[in-house]
């Protein structure tokens, strides 16, 4: 249901923005697609509502609990840590931030000792850096510690 509402919002935004395009041809295709999404999302919501009205609530509850098992508090922590890592990487540089991130993930997920987690984190980060920067010539962020 939530995804359907999001799709409806996105399709309305897409149609509105397409209406502002100065070139009609550029607006046509996304507008058609957005209109179809809008109609089908409403239809999907209606179907779900009918199903829940006919006793589909039990089924929905079961599937919901299966999913919530997969995405728990530790997943939220992981997501927050990843977001923080991405924010810090341009400032701290790749090796320092990646080592910190890996060590943090291992501490949080596996309750690993600080030294072991840091050793793995910085070792693996250095290995990845050697492959991407050394072999593939990718300019990874260096940050303040350049």
């Amino acid at each position, binding site marked *: 249901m939530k995804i359907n509402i999001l799709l409806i919002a996105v399709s309305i935004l897409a149609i509105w923005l397409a209406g502002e395009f100065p070139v009609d041809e550029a607006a046509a295709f996304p507008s058609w697609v957005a209109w179809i999404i809008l109609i089908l999302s409403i*239809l999907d919501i209606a179907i779900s509502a009918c199903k829940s009205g006919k006793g589909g609530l039990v089924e929905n509850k079961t599937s919901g609990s299966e999913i919530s098992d997969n995405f728990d508090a530790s997943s939220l922590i992981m997501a927050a840590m*990843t977001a923080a890592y991405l924010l810090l*990487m341009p400032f701290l540089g790749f090796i320092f931030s990646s080592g910190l991130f890996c060590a943090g993930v291992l501490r949080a997920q596996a309750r690993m000792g600080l030294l072991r987690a840091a050793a793995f984190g910085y070792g693996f980060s250095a290995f990845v850096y050697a492959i991407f920067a050394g072999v593939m010539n990718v300019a990874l962020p260096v940050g303040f510690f350049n």
Partner: protein
Amino acid sequence: MWLCPLDSLIDMETVAGEIFANVSVLGYWVSLLAGAFCGIFFGAVPGVSATMAIALLVPFTFGMDIVGSIALLLGIFFGAIYGGSIPAILFKTPGTPASAAVIFDGYPLMRAGQAGRALSLASVSMLAGAAIGSALLVFLAPQISQIALKFGPAELFAMASFGIITIVAVSDGPLLKGILSALAGLLLSCIGMDPMSGYPRYIFGTAGLMEGLPFIPVLIGLFAVSGALAGKSDSGIEKNDVKVRFCELPPLSDLKKTWKTMFKSGILGAFIGATPGAGCDIAAFVSYGMAKHSAMQGDKFGSGEVKGVAAVESAKAACTSGTLIPLLSLGIPGDSVTAILVGALVLHGVQPGPLLFENNPALAGTILATVVFAHFAVFALALASVRWSTLILKLDEKYIKAGVLLLSIVGSYALRNNMGDVWIAFVFGIVGIAMQKAKFPVAPFLLALILGQMAEVNFRRAAMLEDGSPLFILNSPIALGILVAAFVFFAAASFKRLRKRM
């Protein structure tokens, strides 16, 4: 044989002798194996596509002779296309877009403790597909090229639609959600500069989005990041479940079960590869869709079916040979990888095309022989790598999770040296979790995102050629045939779903 416009047997013998002399040099085999190894390695790194791998290693060929260069480049190309499947099967992290399709059955096999079985079957299927593709390349290239060249905008639009419709039809979950997922992918494919008018659409002032939403970070986000972020669902494997044998070969029963699938997918993959503009990702997804559609009772597609792995790998390998059909017979590169190959060949003074076979039949024959040998080199290395790659699974899952997340992030960054791409991967990791939670299938979304621009551009071009009429389809029997086939396929799959529910 189309490659020999020779008048006499004596000439043929001379050419055969030259080909033999070219390929019996130690340096040739070293280049071939080095190319295959580098290809598998780079293909296995998330974010590094086959195109990137070749582009990175082309400078190494500058000092080499032409035969060694061709061996190295073809080894990299075929190796990279296969290599993408290794992290896809082991960590649900596709190395290349085409490898995303092997996740659906390869990853569940790994979770069942059969990673070695999945990887060895993948390598055997790769060889089977390569054999079919190479045979078609050697014996039927002019005929296939003539058909492929009839593909104009209307046919390419029909082809893109066929790919999307097929994957929607066979995707898991409710059909309506599959259609919505594909439409969402189509809508997101409109982000970026309009390919016809040049007007920037939905970029909100972000220059990084001018080229469109980069699909490799999206792919990495949807599969790898979402898998690493989501907790318990992807942690079903125990270390002790991982069986690692010294030499892993697929069981005979698997080969018996999958040989027909390999054959059909190989033919399909080669034809899709020969069509300029279509790539190995379409071949992989369409072949998977076809195999799933013709599933028999007892087949468990989506939860570790060996036919699913065989279909994808065979189609991918056949497609790599298929892309060389228009390149070698007509001099037309079918995709970005073959475009770089043309550039590399031209650098060495070789112009691919029909004249190559007339002016330098020995070199043309050497290229064809190298296609076959390069596939064998990749197969040998792939089989040898099964043991070493499955050993990684012996590591504690927490290490793997941290490693996958880090590689996903660097892989997304490496594509364009852009932090924006990393954020795209992260956002699509969350989107992937939300989609799984709401039972929206991911595959139609991804394929529609990849094929969206191809569908739109060719639809508009075809309509323009018919004075803006969308009825252009009626004037093209091939396009009409493809679309009718797609709708028949869709109707049959929907009927199957209905019967299952009743």
